């Protein structure tokens, strides 16, 4: 074609530009897109297929992989370790989510004050977030030392010798609560910062209006702060709940899901079944259930959000 750009009709040049944009758009997108398809979408869809097979991690040439229908799922109904794992995830979420969320809001309110050196406190409260979970788990294992450990020493001192010593991580009743404490210690700084951003977004005139109406600090908190933080709270609750269902590292490093499955979680079960035992098919079935739970939690966020947010 010998037409110069100046000579083409505007509509024609627009169409040409549209075609060129389509080409460029897809080529700029393709590296990320190919990686997402290969390493996220493909394995994600595979989980739904593998869940209906007896696929092994190391295939045996003489025994080919077969479709086994719903066998993996019916097995889930009688797998007591799986039930215990799910229950532990629910208990963990039921305790950690409300405690960590309110603790985060309290911390955010405290460091939202105009006080000298307040940023120092923000830094200190946030520092566990940048500490690797494996390290956190190991430090706390030492702190929870049975007998003469530091946590036992504190509890015995505070109770004048009436309580303890406990064998924290070896006691099936105490192991999961013990892990909850360090999980909150490590994670609360993250939510604190999100709440802090939310608090700073609340327009000042709302508080001024409340003051004129004679509202005290407590009333201001319940009638201005909390309603204004509604969407932030929903976000924090949803992400913390999802994290509770992903629970793996600290439970595995400290007690490998024990004692007596007291700290077993869904993802530990996936890891043991899929990786240690090589039962990819069965582990995929657990994965599918796990994903459906996470999906339900994520979708609930959209239901509860008050204002529509354009993407």
């Amino acid at each position: 074609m010998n037409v110069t750009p100046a000579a083409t009709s505007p509509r024609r040049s627009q169409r040409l530009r549209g075609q060129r944009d389509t080409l460029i758009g897809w080529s700029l997108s393709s590296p990320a897109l190919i990686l997402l398809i290969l390493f996220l979408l493909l394995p994600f869809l595979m989980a739904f297929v593998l869940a209906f097979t007896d696929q092994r991690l190391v295939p045996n040439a003489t025994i080919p992989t077969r479709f086994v229908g719903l066998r993996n799922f019916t097995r889930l109904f009688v797998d007591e370790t799986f039930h215990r794992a799910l229950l532990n995830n629910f208990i963990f979420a039921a305790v950690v989510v409300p405690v960590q969320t309110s603790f985060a809001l309290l911390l955010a309110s405290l460091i939202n004050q105009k006080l000298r050196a307040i940023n120092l406190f923000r830094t200190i409260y946030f520092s566990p977030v940048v500490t690797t979970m494996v390290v956190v788990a190991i430090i706390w294992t030492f702190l929870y030392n049975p007998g003469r450990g530091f946590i036992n020493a504190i509890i015995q001192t505070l109770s004048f010798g009436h309580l303890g010593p406990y064998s924290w991580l070896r006691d099936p009743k105490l192991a999961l609560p013990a892990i909850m404490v360090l999980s909150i210690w490590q994670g609360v700084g993250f939510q604190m910062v999100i709440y802090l951003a939310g608090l700073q977004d609340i327009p000042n005139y709302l508080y001024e209006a409340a003051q004129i109406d004679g509202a005290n600090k407590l009333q201001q908190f319940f009638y201005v702060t909390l309603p204004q933080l509604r969407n932030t709270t929903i976000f924090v609750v949803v992400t913390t709940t999802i994290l509770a269902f992903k629970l793996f590292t600290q439970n595995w490093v400290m007690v490998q899901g024990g004692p007596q499955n007291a700290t077993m979680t869904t993802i530990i079960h996936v890891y043991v079944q899929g990786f240690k035992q090589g039962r990819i098919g069965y582990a995929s079935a657990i994965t599918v259930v796990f994903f459906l739970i996470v999906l339900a939690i994520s979708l609930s966020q959209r239901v509860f959000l008050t204002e529509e947010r354009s993407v």
Partner: protein
Amino acid sequence: MTVHSLAEGKVQRRSSPYSLQYRARKGLRIVWDYIILGALALFFLFPLVFMFISSIKNNEDQIIRDMSSIYAFIPQGSIGTQNYYDVFSQMPFGHFMFNSVFIVASIVVVGILVNSLIAYALARLNFTGRSLLVSVIIALMIIPFEAVAVPLLLVINQGPRLLGFQTWIDTYHVQIIPFIADAFSIFLFYQFFIGLPKDLEEAALVDGASRLRIYWNIIVPLSRPVFATVAILQFLTHWGDFLWPLMVTRGAEVRPLPVAMQQFFGRDPKLWGDIMAFAAMITLPVLMVFLLFQKWFVQSVASTGIKG
């Protein structure tokens, strides 16, 4: 603001006879605030101080003796770097550190490039399939890594073999490539890019600049905050990665720090001084980076909350 100061002025004028009392009450409140803030600071600091102090006590018996009292937090007795020497003599710590830094740096650097490119295309080029692609990326954000870990293990083990290559088990790239593209990073870039003014780009387009050039010379310099945010969030996520390297590394060759730490911890008898020295060497560099760039860290985390 004016209403606020008016109201405050009224309060002050009314309580002026008691202004001393008023100020005393206010001072007391501030003291009370600092007591609470300080107590909470102790709660967040004591495990880290405990780790560090234990790591510099040369005598293992003393660490055990001190652990149930306030002495756990006081550097006393024989203080030194013996535990650190012990770690280096028993394990190639430097090699593990290199592995972790190399893996995370690769994910972050290649990741911000790949993710920002697709986000730029989605935010600025009006191409066929664009809106579908945006919906797909947003939908993909819901899938947690844990939901794909097991099938992904099959993909990286069997996939390369089907194509005539070696398995990816026990390599660096198996710990890097699956994490480069990240739907949430793309989303953060996309949100930032659509908020940028278009005038500069349109002028550059009229001047005949290519899209890549516009991306590199106009978009990237204008978008430093979002690049920092994504880099920091990806760093925080992957520095502590544990489940995946636990599954795909067998030997010490390509193993990252968290898995090495867990294995060091798993050996018996447990020498807490050595273990705490290992832990301190993982933690202190990151804490240092955090202290240097803490404003950026806090802003990055805050920006994750604005997702809808």
